[in-house]
């Protein structure tokens, strides 16, 4: 069940990172609505398939619009919504499997368009809903139900991939600090262009990475997630590259570039187009 719907029958496992991401998105959407004095219905959440996609049904409070589509196609659905209705705020929520495996082909085109949508990617390094298979971000050598002898592929490096593809806003965090994460999501929504907030969102059942992310002093484990230094200039591509060459997971805004958005490009293009009515078009075929 969910807060709004007693019939709804999906639940995340206790401790799932996606709880924190959901809270963060609720904070960010509420803050945005207040800041711009826009109704919550001005927001559309486009969800992928997997545990994380169920977030769209579990949002509490004032409800945005939602579309829970097919596996891997959040980005082109969001593209259709945004280009049909540019005044809407469109947010994609998807997991690492949906976004970086079956849906990876859609990243490049949206980056090149600088589509003005925000993506919140929940990365747990595993296919949870299908019970623990390897995902694009699973490390080489890791044993999962589908890699019983260890994975024999290198993991994708999501943040480096985004940077290389030309994504114009890249932020990174983990799910345990919803207020901080909400701040990054708000910045991403305010960014004019294609924005991705990549969130480490641990799977407590198949791939519990909380300890690795946050560290454990008693065990002498250094945290993998490290705040980005205050002197990092996210508008500097070379600095972003250098940051991503570290073995740690950066927390904060990795990269930000001002580029014309797809909607603005389209408006510029049609400014020079002479529109013709169906009558006028029919006339061009008159015998």
């Amino acid at each position, binding site marked *: 069940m969910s807060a709004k719907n007693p*019939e709804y029958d999906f639940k995340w496992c206790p401790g799932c990172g996606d709880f924190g991401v959901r809270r963060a998105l609720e904070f960010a959407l509420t803050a945005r609505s207040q800041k711009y004095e826009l109704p919550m219905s001005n927001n559309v959440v486009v969800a992928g398939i997997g545990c994380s996609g169920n977030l769209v*049904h579990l949002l509490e409070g004032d409800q945005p619009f939602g*579309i829970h589509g097919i596996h891997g196609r959040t980005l082109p659905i969001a593209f*259709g*919504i945004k280009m049909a209705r540019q005044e809407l705020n469109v947010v994609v929520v998807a997991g690492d499997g949906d976004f970086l495996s079956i849906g990876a*082909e859609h990243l490049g085109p949206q980056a090149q368009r600088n589509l003005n949508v925000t993506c919140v990617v929940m990365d747990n390094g595993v296919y949870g809903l299908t019970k623990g298979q390897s995902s694009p971000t699973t490390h080489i050598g890791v044993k999962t139900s589908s890699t019983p002898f260890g994975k024999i592929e290198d993991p994708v490096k999501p943040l480096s991939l985004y940077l290389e593809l030309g994504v114009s806003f890249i932020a990174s965090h983990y799910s345990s600090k919803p207020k901080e994460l909400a701040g990054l999501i708000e910045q991403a929504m305010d960014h004019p262009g294609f924005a991705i907030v990549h969130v480490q969102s641990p799977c407590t059942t198949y791939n519990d990475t909380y300890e690795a992310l946050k560290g454990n002093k008693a065990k002498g484990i250094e945290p993998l997630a490290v705040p980005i230094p205050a002197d990092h200039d996210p508008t500097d591509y070379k600095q972003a590259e250098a940051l991503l060459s570290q073995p740690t997971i950066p927390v904060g805004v990795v990269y930000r570039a001002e580029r014309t958005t797809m909607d603005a490009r389209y408006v510029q*293009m049609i400014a020079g*187009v002479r529109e013709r009515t169906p009558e006028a078009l029919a006339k061009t075929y*008159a*015998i």
Partner: protein
Amino acid sequence: MKSRDFVVRFAGEGGQGVVTSADALARAAAQVGYHVYTFATFPSQILGGPTWTQVRISTEPVQSQGDSLDILVAFNRYAYDHHVSELRESGVVVYNSEDFELGSNGDRSFGIAVDQIAKSVNNPRAANMVVIGAVAQLVDMPLTYLEGFVRKRFTRGRDEDAQVIESNIKALRAGGEAARKSGFVIGELEPPTPPAYEQLLIRGNEALALGATAAGLNFYVGYPISPATTILVWMENNLAGKGKFVHQVSSEIEAITAIIGAGYAGAKSMTATAGPGFSLMSEGLGLAWMAEIPCVVIDVQRGGPATGLPTKTEQSDLLTALHPAHGDVRLPVIAPGTVEECFYAAVQALNWAERYQGPVIVLSEMALAERSQNIRRPDLASIKPERRQIFAGTNGYHRYDADEVSPMPLPGGPGAYVANASEHDGLGDTTHLPERHIRGTERRFGKLVLLNDGSFETDDADSPVLIMPWGGSKGPAREAYNLLRSAGIDVGWAYTMFLHPLPPKLLELLRQKELVIVPELNYQGQWSSILRSDGVKAESIRQYSGLPFNASELADKLKSRVKQHQGRKVHA
């Protein structure tokens, strides 16, 4: 005796003016009131390769490409060798003597030094005019008809207009003179009777695009694929504007999901593709059906499966158009049979999508897409674009609770919900309850009754045997049917472009018949199998060569099938 009809084929290498000659002749003939019908095949390469286009010109409305050739214009030896067998006995070959000589083989042929003549009138670009001047002379079409066309085409407000017109007319006359000197005559074409109404000369894909635009299309994305690319190009050139979006996307998967996003957000959205792209759209079409999102997909059929025959025609995507997605789905399908119907099919597809809030398929085909035909100019003022019911109540609305179509909330407005590809409850939240799946399934199929307004045509419908083609086989089948009727054979006719849902009255009629014969361009007899599952005694006459039916061959097959049926009755 004066003739009422002739067929000329221009064949050669891509880039030799095959298409432009055919287009010019068709336009010139249409302008003076003849009925015209072009038919073309293209090689799957950019430059060169064997190509041909034919034009049928008639004093009466034309319904097929014509069976055999009265004139073959061969631009090279290969074209002559490969097409001369289709020349009728009284036919004549005109060939480019600068490219090859036929010598003693060509007793029904003559050569013209096309480029040399064009140069002699100081217009090397007028070679096409030399050719069509010769063709016109062979059928005794007055050159004044063609001269009118030349004046219209080359009056472009430029200083050199007069000179260009003069040299083109000289080229026409020189071509005519060469044909006259050859001594060959095909016949004397009767003068045309221009229709009283306004006409367009338009291709099938253009008519589809124009119809969609007239119905209020405001979102189009597509990916290049033969033979649907011309729709994308048309849209890029003609649809872009304020409040509208048109774009070439990165794949057919992106195309279908983008038009679903746009349809969800309130746009009238469409894409066009051919078989391979349509296959990629399967899952997306299931989403549009499941989440009840209006959108239109045009499938311009080509030979399949897989990459198949990209530039040939076939009617083999019917089953996949009805059932593109896994699970319990049968989509509305409209299959236009003529260039004129392409216009109205697109209008109705957009209207249907809005009305029942779901995806609609338009099934066109290569032979229809690329042929141009004179059609009655559609009365655009009479087109009534429909708009979906939009929810205007308060939040907490359960869009999917009713047993029938219900108003659709749009983002930004009241009634926020989740459009869900999973089975869902009234709010759109995922559910696995059996009663929800039963109700949801019945709701999705139940909405199709809203689309029972499709029109249909019948002739001699009292006959126990009907001929019922679908799609682009309508034209040749109608000519074949006319041949059977004039031979005194008792057979009736039924046709609709609304294949699903089939107009209920038509289905009722079909079920009463002893035999319904379906000429169709596929191996499996796809439409007759659907009709049989609907309780109709249907059988197919099948062809799967990549080419459309030839009307007289089809008439022979129909005749023997009808006779066989009648004989069986006598013996019974």
